[in-house]
């Protein structure tokens, strides 16, 4: 029995250490030496990086708040034509990563772009370029991120509205509040924890974004990290920049966790009744319909159509791009990463369950912080650590270099995905496990079933739905993931995301369209499978 427990501890410790690796590396590097580049940077660009990051942050928070809260309010409290469609359709925005939105935005508005072609088709030849607004740079980044991230606010706020006590709203009516007054005085304040949590998530994603700002050539902390690594080969500077970014992100991470706790607190456990929706007909329904339609159009239809249009306008890329290997690569990564993630999440969760050890529980809490770390920081820290480890082993023990084993290899890529998405898998399985009473396990033992057979006959079949769901969520994340894949992938190994990024950064947007379209297609498909869960009211 004690032997078993030691295995649980061992695996828990290994996983926790692995996931904590980037944070530890970044913090350790803070005291390391840097090249002159850092001094140069500190004198000149550092302020720009930070201020650009902040401008984008606030630029994105405001529209995501408006888009997310208003749309959640409409679909939660009103009945209008198409409400059930919009409720679902608005989460499709998750299928379009901000960097792909950026490609579409540019493709549409650029000189001689899609809008130009459209105007020409309608009004004939003309010099339209000077009248077409250009959404690039900072503005482009803010627009792209706003439309691709507002979904977080929408989903969490909607869930919070759903749980709002019916009594509360009846009381406000009873006290003579108008719809507008109850919205501002009752509904909005009681959804505040959820809104704060979702905005923290948006802020984290926004600060972590690499693809969009890099495409629009906006210098932020993430591009700074990337450039110090790629252009100056200065890992320490990269890590010191990471340190600054990480401090901000971790603050947001804790805000988010704290607010989530608050959001739960606000949910009434008893006497819960569904809020009856108010029917809107005729002209009254115009505003919600218009708002939701426009939001759906801009967040999903517009980028998808633009990418589809260019894919078919430039059909030569159907031959140039090896679509089969892109699909297979993505599928392969998704399968391997999901398998590893789910196996370990099972192992650790099961270990926590049967050993009932408090220490193990704390360790596993420690190990779920990976999700907060921006992909770019994770990738750079990953390289830093394994370069150091390889050097250390070679110098001290005469090992041959193990660097190639982890950097630029599938193994390394999967390992980095593991760090990044472990909390997603772990928490998913944990919450399902919590639904199985301990006495259920014990009953099974008493009926003569061993621990292993209990796992096979009771746990596995019971958890199979959530395993499927988690795999799909992991797939969705991996398919959209850019910086980790970009930095750690093997030579000549591409996913849709890296392929599209590669073309886009060479100004070959027409070539980026096809992989982007595929990415949206797969991501959309995965969202379709998990929509019930994403919109679940728990």
């Amino acid at each position, binding site marked *: *029995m004690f032997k078993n427990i030691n295995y649980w501890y061992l695996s828990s410790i290994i996983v926790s250490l692995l996931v904590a690796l980037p944070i530890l590396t970044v913090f350790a590097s803070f005291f390391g030496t840097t090249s002159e580049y850092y001094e140069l940077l500190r004198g000149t660009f550092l302020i720009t990086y930070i201020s650009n990051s902040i401008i984008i942050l606030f630029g994105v928070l405001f529209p995501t708040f408006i888009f997310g809260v208003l749309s959640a309010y409409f679909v939660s409290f009103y009945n209008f034509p198409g409400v059930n469609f919009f409720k679902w359709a608005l989460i499709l925005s998750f299928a379009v990563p901000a960097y792909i939105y950026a490609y579409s935005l540019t493709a549409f508005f650029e000189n001689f772009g899609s809008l130009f072609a459209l105007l020409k088709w309608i009004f004939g030849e003309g010099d339209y370029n000077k009248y077409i607004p250009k959404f690039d740079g900072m503005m482009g980044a803010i627009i792209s991120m706003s439309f691709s991230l507002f979904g977080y606010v929408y989903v969490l706020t909607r869930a919070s509205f759903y749980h709002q006590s019916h009594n509360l709203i009846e009381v406000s009516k009873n006290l003579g509040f108008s719809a507008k007054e109850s919205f501002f005085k009752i509904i909005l304040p009681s959804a505040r924890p959820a809104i704060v949590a979702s905005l923290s998530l948006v802020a984290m994603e926004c600060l972590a974004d690499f693809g969009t700002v890099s495409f629009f050539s906006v210098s932020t902390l993430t591009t700074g990290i990337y450039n110090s690594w790629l252009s100056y080969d200065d890992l320490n500077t990269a890590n010191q920049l990471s340190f600054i970014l990480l401090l901000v992100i971790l603050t947001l991470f804790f805000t988010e966790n704290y607010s989530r706790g608050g959001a739960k607190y606000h949910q009434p456990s008893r006497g819960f009744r569904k809020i009856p929706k108010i029917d809107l007909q005729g002209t009254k329904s115009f505003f919600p319909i218009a708002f939701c339609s426009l939001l759906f159009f801009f967040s999903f239809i517009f980028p998808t159509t633009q990418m589809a249009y260019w894919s078919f306008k430039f059909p030569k890329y159907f031959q140039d791009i090896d679509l089969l290997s892109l699909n297979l690569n993505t599928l392969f990564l998704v399968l391997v990463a999901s398998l590893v993630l789910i196996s370990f999440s099972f192992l650790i969760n099961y270990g926590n369950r049967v050993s009932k050890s408090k220490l193990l529980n704390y360790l596993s809490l420690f190990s779920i912080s990976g999700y907060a770390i921006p992909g770019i920081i994770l990738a750079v820290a990953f390289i830093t650590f394994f370069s150091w480890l390889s050097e250390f082993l070679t110098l001290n023990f005469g090992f041959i270099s193990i660097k190639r084993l982890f950097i630029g290899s599938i193994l390394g890529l999967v390992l980095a995905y593991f760090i990044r998405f472990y909390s997603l898998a772990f928490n998913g399985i944990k919450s399902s496990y919590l*639904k*199985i*009473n301990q*006495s*259920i396990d*014990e*009953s*099974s*033992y*008493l*009926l*003569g*079933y*061993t621990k292993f057979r209990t796992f096979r006959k*009771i746990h596995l*079949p*019971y958890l199979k739905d959530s395993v499927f769901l988690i795999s799909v969520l992991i797939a969705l994340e991996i398919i959209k993931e850019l910086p980790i894949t970009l930095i750690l992938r093997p030579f000549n190994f591409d996913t849709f995301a890296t392929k599209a990024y590669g073309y886009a950064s060479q100004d070959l947007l027409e070539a980026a369209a096809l992989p982007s379209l595929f990415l949206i297609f797969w991501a959309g498909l995965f969202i379709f499978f998990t929509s019930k869960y994403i919109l679940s009211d728990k």
Partner: protein
Amino acid sequence: MYNNFLEIQNTTFVASKLNKVLDFNLTIKNEGDIICLLGPSGIGKTTILRSIAGLQNIPKGSISLKGKTLSSENEHVEPEKRNIALSFQDNSLFPHYTILDNINFGAKRNRNSKYNFEAKELIKVLHLNGLEEKFPHQVSAGEAQRVSLARSLMSKPDLLLLDEPFSNIDESLKVELQLNIKKILKTNKITTIMVTHDSYEAFYMADYCGIILSQTMKQYDTPYNIHHYPNSIEVVNFLNKGILVDAKVLDDSSVEHECLGIIKGDFVKKYPKGTAVKLLVQPEDLEHDDKSKLQLKIIDRKFRGTNFIYTLKTKNNDLIPVFVHSHHIHQHEIEENFGIKTPIYIDHLVCF
């Protein structure tokens, strides 16, 4: 082979840091006996069952079944190897199996068992017909409890442990179920330890009852003896089936109470003449007699269906319960006087 079917010796059971049962001894000589453990909630009854089942370790003592040690300080046979079934108080059904699959989940284990019943039969006597294809979340708490009981029985264990098996079950069904289950347990000689806080249930089901109070087993005896010969004030208070009044020992066969007068009977334990004792008076000990000179004031009347229990107040403020048949010719109202037949004779004088 073995002397005693089950033997628990000097065992400590730990429910939590503050809540333990110490120096627990229990011997079940014969296979097929039904033992009930009675005690207030939170005393550690469930922990005892869990430890016997092997779900918890014991820090001290030993537990052996059929002569084989299952638990001691150094030994611990895993629960799946004990062939002991435990029916939990809370719902422990497997959520993704149907009721029938749940019942049959442990049935494969002991195919060649001497027990002679089948799932169908249990479903019938436990009133589970029509639920076979349903899932646990579709049945009521009482039904789930019966399914859990059926599942435990179907695993045909050497020892059956039941944790408050009737706690969620309707009054109307309870009596019938108790009857049916007792019949199954007795005909198949299934040794059972059952935990309950309902003394009537325990008295009906059990061959022997154990009373657990303040960390220890206070009394272990047949239900009749537990009721009539409680061995301590704590047990009297716990069972709450009578009250203790101050009295003085007169001679070998009588005591005197200030207000009730001389009470005759056989002492359970001898006391020297003149000793001040506390005498147990149970509702069935006193008899009603309208013509009696001994009249006490009624301060409460409980209608129990088949009987009334009047509470009478004596001059020295003792509150004495008296049992009267429901079809007694007339009822007495509160504040009225109530006659008690004298001289008073109580079969066994229980004094402390």
